[in-house]
């Protein structure tokens, strides 16, 4: 069955009869496209990590992360790894054409992903409150003047790379959750996302940076609405597998960010 789909990949997509050459990569187009995107995206992250290392390599780098941060980050890592497992289960369920199981596993993946984002957001809020901040971030009420504040003045690259790298990754996780939500629930996901956006916007106080970052959800809402309008079809096993590729990649990137950003900066 899969062979036939692969062979007539182009034909099926366009309703044109005729024979095609076997795909060079032996996979259907969406999968190849996603892999190529991931190759490019890994270079985007790679460049960020190189920038991080380039700044760090000859700088007296601070090591402020204590027990609390490390435990938190470890739980976040476990969340992401488990979400990858549930994603694999979702792909299997989709290949068995078991759509209700697929949806459940996808929702489980999204729950783990959301847990990651929330934990990470709390970590950020905590660090900003302790004084690790960028000049442009809103100053929360009662910001403390601890070791972190000295660090963000003394080695501005520390805060910059921490927030830059993790924000980029968090953005990818957010996009991933929205992507999975669209695959799992299709247009029913849009009102849910809208409610989450509005709720988060009003629940987060204005002196928190996420009060502004939450607008990313609005952009995600608009983009997914446009895509659902352009392609209002049901998503099949292939789509689930492709979204899984993206999700695992987000997981993979964290496997580099976690040791480089957190574990290399633990407090002695």
């Amino acid at each position: 069955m899969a062979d036939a789909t692969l062979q007539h990949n182009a034909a099926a997509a366009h309703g044109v009869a005729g024979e095609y050459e076997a795909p060079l990569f032996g996979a259907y187009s969406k999968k190849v496209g996603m892999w190529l995107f991931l190759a490019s995206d890994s270079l985007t992250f790679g460049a960020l990590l190189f920038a991080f290392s380039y700044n760090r390599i000859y700088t007296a780098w601070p090591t402020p992360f204590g027990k609390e941060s490390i435990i938190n980050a470890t739980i976040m890592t476990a969340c992401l790894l488990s979400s990858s497992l549930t994603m694999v289960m979702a792909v299997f369920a989709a290949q068995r054409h078991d759509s209700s199981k697929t949806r459940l596993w996808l929702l489980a993946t999204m729950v783990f992903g959301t847990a990651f984002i929330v934990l990470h957001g709390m970590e950020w809020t905590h660090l900003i409150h302790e004084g690790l901040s960028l000049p442009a971030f809103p100053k929360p009420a009662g910001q403390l003047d601890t070791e972190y504040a000295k660090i963000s003045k003394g080695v501005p690259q520390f805060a910059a790379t921490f927030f830059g790298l993790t924000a980029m990754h968090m953005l990818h996780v957010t996009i991933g959750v929205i992507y999975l939500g669209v695959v799992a629930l299709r247009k029913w996901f849009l009102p849910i996302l809208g409610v989450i956006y509005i709720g988060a916007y009003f629940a987060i106080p204005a002196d928190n940076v996420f009060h502004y970052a939450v607008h990313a959800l609005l952009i995600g809402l608009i983009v997914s609405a446009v895509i659902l309008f352009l392609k209002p079809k049901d998503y099949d096993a292939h789509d689930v597998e492709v979204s899984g590729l993206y999700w695992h990649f987000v997981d993979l990137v964290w496997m580099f960010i976690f040791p480089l950003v957190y574990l290399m900066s633990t407090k002695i």
Partner: protein
Amino acid sequence: MHDVAKHDDSKGQYFWVWGALLFLTAVEVWLGYRQVFEPVRMLQVLLLLSVIKSALIIGYFMHLKFEKAIMRWMLVISVTGCFVIMYFFFFPDADRVKPPPSGVGIGQKS
């Protein structure tokens, strides 16, 4: 040509991979938290563990192990090739951000 559904029977291996990933993470955290090695060696060890973890994710979760050889090699070589090139030229060059010895230049002012 490979059929994705064929690997359905070996679902157990994904739990093993998941367990291995969690275990490696625990090792990393332990190494990092107990400061087992001095920083440069630590970086090498952590990066090695991360590469192993990402290989597990790419190979099993992302299914690259079961794709055609040409796809595997093209993707892996092009991306790692770029990283290797960047590695060889970025880091020898990075010592230029090193602050000048014994505090000459603008580092000392202000």
